[in-house]
């Protein structure tokens, strides 16, 4: 009999092996690469400044030169902003089919027969989706920047932008996990989570929604607003100016909210018969 060693790495390895085989990961990364490339290639098309002031040719050239030189960060933010829209659909589906579906298929029952604590199953299911989706979005966005506009991105800004997408992925996953443990239904999980985030999206575009709520629910938009170089549809979301501190507080609040939601999911999951 071999020596018994128990570690959390085995749990994540199990999840990757059983639910996210290589083709799934490749598809995820490819999707975000396409989003990144699309964002980079269409970036200038959405910049209305380029089309204005037709008489001042030299001003327009200067503006375009300036945009191209600083385009790295701008492309990154545009790509991340587009990824947010993809997250609203993708994350609920992944949690629905790899977690909520497990109640019906017997996967959760089988898993709970092995020596894994319930909190680790929540962490395993949530963590794997956050890791895969956020890293695929990061790889896709960075690749689009490196491929099309290798210059013009500062590391500090890049870290801020990428952190915001990881925080948002964590928050979205925690919402979907909570819906999954309450409903135990893939259909309710997918549509319930999507509906929640579409409503949240509509709420942040409303001028009366408190700024704190906006920065908490969609940290990447707050970062776009703070840098002021994101796509137009994003930077018009916030009425007032966003500071660096606002973006950090928003991300902190989002993390806190995600932890609370995951904690609630664990309490419900622990009390649920399987």
């Amino acid at each position, binding site marked *: 009999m071999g*020596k018994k060693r*128990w570690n959390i790495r*085995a749990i994540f390895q199990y999840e990757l*092996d*059983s639910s996210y085989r290589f083709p799934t990961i490749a598809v995820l990364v490819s999707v975000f690469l396409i989003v990144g490339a699309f964002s980079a290639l269409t970036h200038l098309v959405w910049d209305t400044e380029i089309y204005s002031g037709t008489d001042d040719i030299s001003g327009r050239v200067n503006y375009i030169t300036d945009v191209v030189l600083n385009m790295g960060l701008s492309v990154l933010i545009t790509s991340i902003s587009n990824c947010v829209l993809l997250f609203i659909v993708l994350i609920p589906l992944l949690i629905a089919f790899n977690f909520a579906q497990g109640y019906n298929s017997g996967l959760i*029952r*089988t898993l709970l027969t092995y020596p894994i*604590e319930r909190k680790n199953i929540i962490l395993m299911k949530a963590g794997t989706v956050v890791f895969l989706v956020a890293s695929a979005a990061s790889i896709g966005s960075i690749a689009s920047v490196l491929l099309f506009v290798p210059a013009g991105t500062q590391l500090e800004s890049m870290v801020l932008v990428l952190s915001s997408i990881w925080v948002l992925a964590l928050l979205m996953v925690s919402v979907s996990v909570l819906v999954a443990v309450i409903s135990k239904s893939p259909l309710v999980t997918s549509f319930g989570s999507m509906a929640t985030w579409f409503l949240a999206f509509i709420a942040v575009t409303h001028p009366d929604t408190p700024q704190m709520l906006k920065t908490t629910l969609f940290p990447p938009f707050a970062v776009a607003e703070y840098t002021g170089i994101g796509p137009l549809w994003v930077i018009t979301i916030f009425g007032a100016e966003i500071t660096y501190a606002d973006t950090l507080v928003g991300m902190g609040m989002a993390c806190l909210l995600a932890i609370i939601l995951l904690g609630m999911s664990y309490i419900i999951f622990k009390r649920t018969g*399987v």
Partner: protein
Amino acid sequence: MTASEDIVSVSSLCKKFGKVEALNGLTLHSGPGIIGLIGPNGAGKTTLLRILLGLLRPDSGNARILGHDVIRKSLEVRKKVGALHEKAFFPPSMTPSNYLKAVNRLYGTDDSVDELLSLVGLSHASDRKIKHLSAGMHQRLGLAQALCGGPELVFLDEPTSYLDVGGRDDVVSLIVRVHQESGVSFFISSHILSELERACHTVAFVKSGQVIDFGPVDELVRKHTKNRFQVTTSDPKRLSKILEQTSGISDILIMGSASVIVEVSPNQEGDIELLINRVAEKNGIEVYRIDSTGTLEDVYRKVNRSG
């Protein structure tokens, strides 16, 4: 057997699902070996197994597996037990070999997967995707994953229910072999009584959420079927009708086209041959043989009716 030697120890276990009482003060204490859990649908067998595995919380009562409380020490219990659920799900795109490696990692062991596959007779399909395995192979994989981590006790919920006769025989033989070779105890819930009779040392009859009888298989069969006889006759249908109206006969069951199972009232066993022969002769029915009979299935029918 003392309480400390019990591998399964359940006292006054109650569990309700809404208004349905799945377990109603179930008590069971069993030592090591192959233990069978028998009962009709809805008797509470699966609920009991799920409580023992920590998947469900009982409303009241307590349960211990291998000396550990199943609620408070659920993780300790699961490190020492394996389980194969009814309609078990395994990731369809993985191979048996990879799946068992992944499960071994969860148990923190580096046991040989090849040995496990060979033990359950699945070596030839070790690299086939799980979705391409037959029902029998799937159950073998289920048994193999239940044996990962070197368990002391394995729970099997209807392990042979989707198998043909050959597949059922193989699985039962495998259970007996594993028990004999490695001393692993099994706790099996099943409807297929002939297999349980072959494999189990002790059985518990569960009905309406309670254990209504428990003991070694041969003792139970002796106890419940000592008044049971199989009568081979030319006209079982007519004989059973006539015997129904005869005093001293407590139960009659037609078996196939040539025999009747007859249960006589207590203290009538000695006169059974005379009684049946007399009745048959009077009605022109030929009786070829009268043998005492008793299987777990007979016990099940009797206990189920009387319980």
